[in-house]
Structures are given as structure tokens and as C-alpha cells.
């Protein structure tokens, strides 16, 4: 038993350390602030397809065909949110990191955007009738959308770190005589560090391009982002991430908070790509997305505890367990399950920990198979994780009934997995009392 305690203690300490890392804190905080942007984009995609579209939307009906004229509104919103996500991410990560480093202004956000843009190409090549033309003064889409996300995260962190370090160097302060008001001299104190930071980053981007013939974007995308994306788009990669989250929940630590810094950029990126494709009428490619996680692997909260609640109502007579289940049903519908985890409890409960870890891995596999054979539609709309089951499957796939059926099947499987373990747990608690 002491061995187990040792492991729990070590995991707890790791959680502490990991979450105190400044970069992790900044990235997590930034994505929380970004969420409404993504939801606005999702709303625009839904409106565009369900209302304004001539083929699939309300505009299909002749009496409502005027709605199709309004489609550009939704498309513009979609463009403004989804295609500029990285700009927002760079700004927010830099502000958060600046704050953690003790800089309370918003300037690090601007600084990071300048650095980020300075390493991106501002021209693009088009081919017209077999001839290559260079169009200048444009920023192509991949340099501001999720394809640049990892480069953006790196640049935000590096630029703020350099800037924060330089701010502390006394020699770089522009000294003003005492007669100058303090606010005026403060406005100069950041000047040299800002010039140095932006010049350094821009110069690095330039040298890198001259030496390798590649923009930083290409290098980071190919070496870091794409490999990570393909790991996350594979079932084993996804299941491993879920497994890690569940292990932390079992020792009573918020598992999603632990994996967020990896999960959010990749799975949110994946749903954004699908949303853009769907909006443009292209077949979406990503099976594993943020809604996939919520719809098939986190029904009723981490561990698919919606199935656990139903299993208790069906087959468990033990009063304490039924009480907790009743208390948990309301929040459970919105995928909040802390009462189950700490009240039943699942935390540090070796019997219930087993189905709690296994269930999402099984339902995730079911969801993956159902989606890849085309029975369930791919997620093409981001929905908030608090969206109740059935509605979440329906909305996120823009109305795929196959997805709803698959989700219901996953709930059924969850009930079946939890049942025997709940019976053992009930028997045990009866013996104890």
C-alpha cells in the first residue's frame, strides 16, 4: 500500500510542478480566453449552413431564399474568427506570460504580434496561365490561422522572455532628469528593450530564411506541429492522452487541466480546420477533434460518468450511492461530475477507478470506428463542453443522426462497464458499515 501512496505522492508533486511552469500557465490561460472566439466562429458556421445556405439551409425554401443574400455576413465572421486565431493566441499568451513575469501592461501582447508578423512572409506566389507572379503586401491565410499556432506560441514565449530579461537590465533604461514627470520617463524605459527584442526576432527569422531557404513557419510546421497533429489524429495517441488525464482524476487531480497544454492547441486546431472546410463545402478531414473528445469520451464528465449515474439508478440500492447519484444528475447532464468523483467517491477508490479509466478508452474507440467508417458524421462545429449529451452529438456534427446513435451506444456501453464494479463497491460499503 505504501508503494501506491508513493506513486500518488509523486504524481501529485508532478502536477504541482507542471502547472507552475510559466509557459504552461500562460498557454492554458490564453486558450480559456480564446474559447468565445472559437464559439463565435462555430456559430457563424452553423448560421451559414443551417440558415443562409441555398442547398442545406432555410434559404432552400423559395419563400426564404432572400436569406442567401446574407450569407457573406456569416462567412466574414467565420473568416475573422477562425482564420485569425493565431493572432489572438500570440497576443494573449504574451500578455499572460508578461503578467507572470511581473509586467502588468498589455504591451507584451503587441510586442509579440510584431515579432510574429516580422518572421512571416508578406508576399505570396500565384500562378496565372502557367506564369508565376509574386503578389506583395499580403499575409496568406496559413500565417494567421491554426497552421501557425505552434510558431505563434514559440514566438510569443521567446519574445516576451527576451523583453522581460532586457527590461531588468538597468543600463538599457533611458535616464531622464528629475524634472521630467515619472510617467513620461516610464514611457521611454521600455523603448530600448522593445527595439532590441523585435530586431533580434526579425533578424533571426531573416537569417534562418537566408540559410535554409525556408521560413520559420515551414520549419516549425513540418518539424513540430505536423508530427504532433498526426500523433493526435491517431487513435493510440488520443487514448494515451485520455489515459493520462484519467490517472490524474483517480488521484483527485483535475486531469484535463494536466493535458490541456497539449490537447487544446491540437484538438481545437483540428476542429477549426474542419469548421473552415465545412464552411467552404469541402469534406472535413479530421476525425479526432475537441467535440469528438466531449461527445464520445466525456459523456456526463470525465470517465463518461453519465453511464455510471444511470447504472446506479437501475441496479444499486445502497442509499448513500443513490443520494450522490441524485445530487450528480443535474450537473451531470451538463458534463460536470465533481460530486461523483469526490462524493461517491472515485478518487482513490481502486474498484471504481478501473471502469473510470477503461470506459472513455472503449467509448473513444467506438466513436473513432463509427466516424471512420462514415456511420457517424465528423465534428464540423465547435460546441462548448458543457453541452448536454445528444444535443452535443447532433450540433457538433451539424445534424448527423449516426453520431447521436453512436453517442447513445457509448452511454449504453458505459452503463454495462460500470455496473459490475458498482455492485462490488456497493457490497463492500455494506460490509464496512
Amino acid at each position, binding site marked *: 500500500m505504501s508503494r501506491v501512496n508513493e506513486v500518488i505522492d509523486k504524481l501529485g508533486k508532478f502536477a504541482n510542478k507542471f*502547472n507552475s511552469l510559466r509557459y504552461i*500557465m500562460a498557454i492554458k490561460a490564453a486558450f480559456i480566453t480564446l474559447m468565445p472566439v472559437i464559439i463565435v466562429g462555430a456559430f457563424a458556421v452553423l448560421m451559414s449552413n443551417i440558415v443562409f445556405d441555398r442547398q442545406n439551409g432555410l434559404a432552400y425554401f423559395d419563400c426564404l431564399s432572400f436569406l442567401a443574400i446574407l450569407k457573406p455576413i456569416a462567412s466574414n465572421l467565420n473568416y475573422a474568427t477562425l482564420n485569425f486565431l493565431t493572432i489572438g493566441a500570440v497576443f494573449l499568451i504574451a500578455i499572460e506570460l508578461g503578467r507572470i513575469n511581473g509586467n502588468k501592461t498589455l504591451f507584451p501582447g503587441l510586442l509579440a504580434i510584431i515579432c510574429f508578423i516580422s518572421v512571416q512572409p508578406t508576399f505570396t506566389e500565384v500562378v496565372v496561365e502557367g506564369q508565376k507572379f509574386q503578389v506583395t503586401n499580403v499575409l496568406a491565410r496559413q500565417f494567421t490561422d491554426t497552421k501557425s499556432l505552434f510558431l505563434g506560441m514559440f514566438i510569443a514565449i521567446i519574445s516576451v522572455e527576451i523583453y522581460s530579461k532586457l527590461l531588468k537590465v538597468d543600463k538599457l533604461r533611458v535616464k531622464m532628469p528629475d524634472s521630467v514627470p515619472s510617467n513620461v520617463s516610464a514611457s521611454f524605459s521600455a523603448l530600448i528593450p522593445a527595439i532590441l527584442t523585435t530586431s533580434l526576432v526579425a533578424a533571426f527569422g531573416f537569417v534562418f530564411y537566408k540559410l535554409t531557404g525556408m521560413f520559420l513557419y515551414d520549419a516549425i510546421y513540418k518539424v513540430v506541429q505536423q508530427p504532433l497533429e498526426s500523433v493526435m489524429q491517431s487513435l493510440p495517441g488520443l487514448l494515451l492522452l485520455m489515459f493520462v488525464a484519467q490517472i490524474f482524476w483517480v488521484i483527485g*487531480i483535475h486531469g484535463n487541466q494536466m493535458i490541456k497544454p497539449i490537447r487544446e492547441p491540437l484538438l481545437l486546431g483540428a476542429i477549426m480546420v474542419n469548421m473552415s472546410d465545412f464552411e467552404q463545402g469541402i469534406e472535413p478531414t479530421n476525425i479526432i477533434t475537441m467535440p469528438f473528445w466531449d461527445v464520445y469520451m466525456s459523456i456526463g464528465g470525465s470517465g463518461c460518468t453519465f453511464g455510471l449515474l444511470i447504472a446506479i439508478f437501475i441496479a444499486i440500492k445502497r442509499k448513500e450511492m443513490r443520494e450522490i447519484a441524485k445530487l450528480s444528475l443535474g450537473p451531470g447532464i451538463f458534463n*460536470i461530475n*465533481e460530486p461523483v*468523483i469526490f462524493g461517491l467517491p472515485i478518487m482513490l477508490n481502486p474498484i471504481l477507478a478501473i471502469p473510470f479509466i477503461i470506459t472513455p478508452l472503449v467509448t473513444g474507440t467506438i466513436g473513432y470506428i463509427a466516424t471512420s467508417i462514415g456511420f457517424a458524421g465528423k465534428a464540423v462545429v465547435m460546441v462548448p463542453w*458543457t453541452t448536454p449529451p445528444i444535443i452535443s452529438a447532433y450540433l457538433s456534427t451539424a445534424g448527423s443522426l449516426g453520431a447521436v446513435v453512436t453517442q447513445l451506444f457509448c452511454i449504453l456501453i458505459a452503463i454495462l462497464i460500470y455496473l459490475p464494479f458498482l455492485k462490488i463497491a456497493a457490497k463492500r460499503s455494506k460490509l464496512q458499515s
Partner: protein
Amino acid sequence: MKQVIFACAGGMSTSLLVNKIRKEALERSLDFDFIAISEQLLYQHLNSDSDNIVAVLLGPQMRFALDESKKQTEKFGIPIDIIDPVAYGTMNASKVLDQILQMIKA
């Protein structure tokens, strides 16, 4: 009014508890404002309203954030603690309220 801050990942599950604690406090005729927030916003709340905040409680699932959060609350001399996991899971408002009163006294 004196504020007690509850923080968890998204301020969702603590808001469940907060609803129950408000009722409990009313019954005991205690005059507190109970607020559930996301742990990420603790910094902002502390900086804008530190005079009124008398205690900060973290959901047990956020106990990994205690050290970092403590650094911030200590600046203002505000007590911070983890909510008892069992009381949290069973949404035992009376027990958590006792815990808060203990913290404020100490």
C-alpha cells in the same frame, strides 16, 4: 460586503457548492458574498477587490494550483485552503461553511 472566493478549473463545479452555501449562510444569518470563479481569474479578483476578500477556497481537483495561488493571496494576507474533498463531493455546505469560518478566525 465581505467576499469568499471559490475557485476551480472553470468555476462550474464550485458554483454548485456556492448555491448551497448561500442558503446555509442565510440560515445562519451570516453576511458574506460567495463567488465562484475560474482559478485563472483569481489574480484579477485579488488585484481589484482584495480589501473585501476574506478567504479563498480551491476545489480539491485544483490542489495542484495551491502553491501558485498562495503566492498571490499571501501578498494580501488572505487565507487560502483546499475544500475538503468529501464535503465537496457530497456538497456538504454546512461543513464547508464551518471550514471557512475556521479560516477567517485563524
